């Protein structure tokens, strides 16, 4: 791990677990996370990484999951903390990695050590670093969707709202059933697409009824699902990852929008 900057006392060295979707689909979310972490006084590194194994895990392929988990454990073992801009991917490590190695005490200990230092982005900022305010401006009414794993596995609910409440120009309006699943569920959205569509339809209606111009959440999978539905139905709501707003990095078009194009 010689490539890593050495840590000064009191300066946490954070490994950014960028997550597959952010890496591939919306890297700007990753850079927003880096900015938030650096502003909060962390040294941030993004080691070469692939996938935490969640798709395999939820499809019943424990063998592949374990292989990928071992790789993750090794990749991130030198950091003080591991932070992901996703409740679901952070939850995979925090809640499920230790379970994967029940019969292997050596790996189980390593998995538990990684689990203990892994956090979802907003909860890391608020709960670990004690951040209460970010310097950002965003105009308009926004509503926040609580993604399931972040909410129920990691208790992410008040943290993003606390940080959003300090963003200049922003009003947070709550939609009905903000804590109900959006119907994404990884491969579920493709395997059971009719059911998934009906669930995200209910979500889209709640978003629209809240009269917010922007929908935020902390998980890109859910965001792509909701953005895809809103745009297909012609509902004029912009969709972004919460980190983009908190980091004051909203120059990139919203999810599903083209550069310099508004919703038609």
């Amino acid at each position: 791990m010689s490539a890593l900057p050495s840590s000064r006392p009191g300066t946490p060295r954070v490994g950014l677990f960028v997550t597959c979707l952010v890496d591939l689909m919306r890297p700007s979310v990753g850079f927003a996370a880096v900015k938030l972490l650096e502003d909060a006084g962390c040294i941030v590194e993004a080691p070469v990484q692939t996938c935490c194994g969640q798709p395999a895990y939820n499809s019943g392929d424990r063998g592949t999951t374990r292989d990928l988990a071992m790789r993750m454990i090794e990749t991130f073992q030198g950091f003080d903390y591991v932070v992901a801009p996703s409740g679901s991917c952070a939850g995979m490590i925090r809640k499920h990695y230790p379970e994967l190695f029940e019969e292997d005490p050596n790996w189980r200990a390593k998995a538990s050590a990684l689990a203990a230092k892994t956090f979802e982005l907003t909860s890391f900022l608020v709960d670990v670093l004690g951040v209460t305010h970010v310097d950002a401006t965003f105009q308009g009414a926004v509503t926040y969707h609580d993604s399931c794993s972040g909410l129920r596995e990691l208790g992410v609910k008040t943290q993003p709202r606390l940080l959003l409440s300090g963003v200049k120009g922003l009003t947070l309006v709550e939609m009905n059933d903000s804590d109900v699943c959006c119907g994404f569920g990884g491969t579920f959205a493709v395997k059971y697409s009719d059911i998934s569509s009906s669930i995200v339809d209910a979500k889209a209606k709640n978003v629209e009824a809240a009269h917010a111009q922007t929908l935020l959440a902390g998980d890109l999978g859910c965001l792509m699902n909701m953005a895809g539905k809103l745009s297909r139905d012609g509902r004029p709501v912009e969709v972004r990852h919460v980190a983009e707003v908190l980091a004051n990095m909203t120059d990139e078009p919203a999810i599903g929008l083209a550069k310099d194009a508004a919703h038609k």
Partner: protein
Amino acid sequence: MTVHTTSPQFKQNATRALHDVQLQKALNNVKQGFIDKRQAAADKLPEFEALRDSARDIKNHTLEHLDLYLEAYEAKVKASGGHVHFARNADEAREIILKICREAGAKTVTKGKSMISEEIGINHYLEANGITPVETDLGEYIIQLRNELPSHIIAPAVHLNASQVEQDFRRVHTHLDAKRDLSEPVQLLTEARAVLRERFLAADVGITGANFLVAETGTSIIVTNEGNGDLTQILPKTHVVLASIEKLVPTLEDVSQLLRVLARSATGQEMSVYTTFSTGPRRPGDADGPENYHVVLIDNGRSSMLGTSFEEMLRCIRCGACMNHCPVYHAVGGHAYGWVYPGPMGAVLTPSLIGVDKAGHLPNASTFCGRCESVCPVRIPLPKLMRHWREREFERHLTPASVRSGLNLWGFFAKRPALYRFATRAAMATLGFAGRRRGRFSWLPLAKGWTKHRDFPAPQGETFQARWQRERSRRTA
């Protein structure tokens, strides 16, 4: 053999349900009613979360020592003058019940609401043997008239509306005035009551389920809101209790703990309207009660779950909270699951009872949102158990080939970081370029399931890792 299943056709069932306008309206009531009421009831009781822990512990303890508690229970029932019959499967249970009915010379049998009786398909069996079973819970009565399975474990007819029930009553209650007014729900209720009252009085045998069986006293307990269970078990000469073996609980004290979470989780009531205890037949001097008291203890697959990762499912107290909070249940209703038990608890239990080859869709049709586990009064980790089923399916190569090959491909790259970066960089550049005009795709060849219903947002183009490397090397240069 048990009841016919359409679980293998889950997808088709679900699609049909999604297009059923009337059903969708009815499901809206589930979404709104149960959830708020449960939350209000839980909020009012400061020790509710602690009670859930102790409910879990009581059931775990019982399951660990199930053999001992079964023996103790049996001895108590016998001592109070009752009979205990053990049935290994549905066939045996049905034969035992038929024999009891024959010995009682039964022509009609009244029934309290019981999911295990649905599981073993007792109604059709009795009918085929010349005995008329009459469901006395209003919802079950309606379901019986329609020859359907319940669509919810505590609200069997929740998928129906009043006008459908009115049509059924007019079709079946032909002895009543055809011009009668049935436009109000209360009129339907009154009519059902009147019809059922005669049936109660005529019945030779009453069959009930059990919410709990108490080892300490040999007592069986049912909770209802209509009082029909009481009339079912008190009026006929013979009372038969049908219960699966995991209904056992050590003591009355334990039951009182479980009752405190049961109704609150189910309907938001502090207690159900009726909580009825019965211990053995009528004793000399008792004001009422049956002359004969039988308990049929049914295994039907439970004991093979003991000691496996599915043992936790045997804690279930059938409150229905998991389905009340399930987005998939809200979308498709109970019948889509294709067998007796719907929702998250059905998604775990059904593969255990009828085989994962038939019920394989059920544990897969979940987003793992975790809301079921967050409300389950006995803290069953339902998503985890569904995942265990997916693992069994994967091991047995029951996972669809398309999913397997997709996963293999993904896994292949994910295990090879250099290749991964190379391949994803190229793929995202192409996809980002193709989608740059609109920012999204309304059709993608490999994601038809996705793009059938929603757009696929285009990637920004460059991957995070590529840009990070580029910028970092510039920073350090």
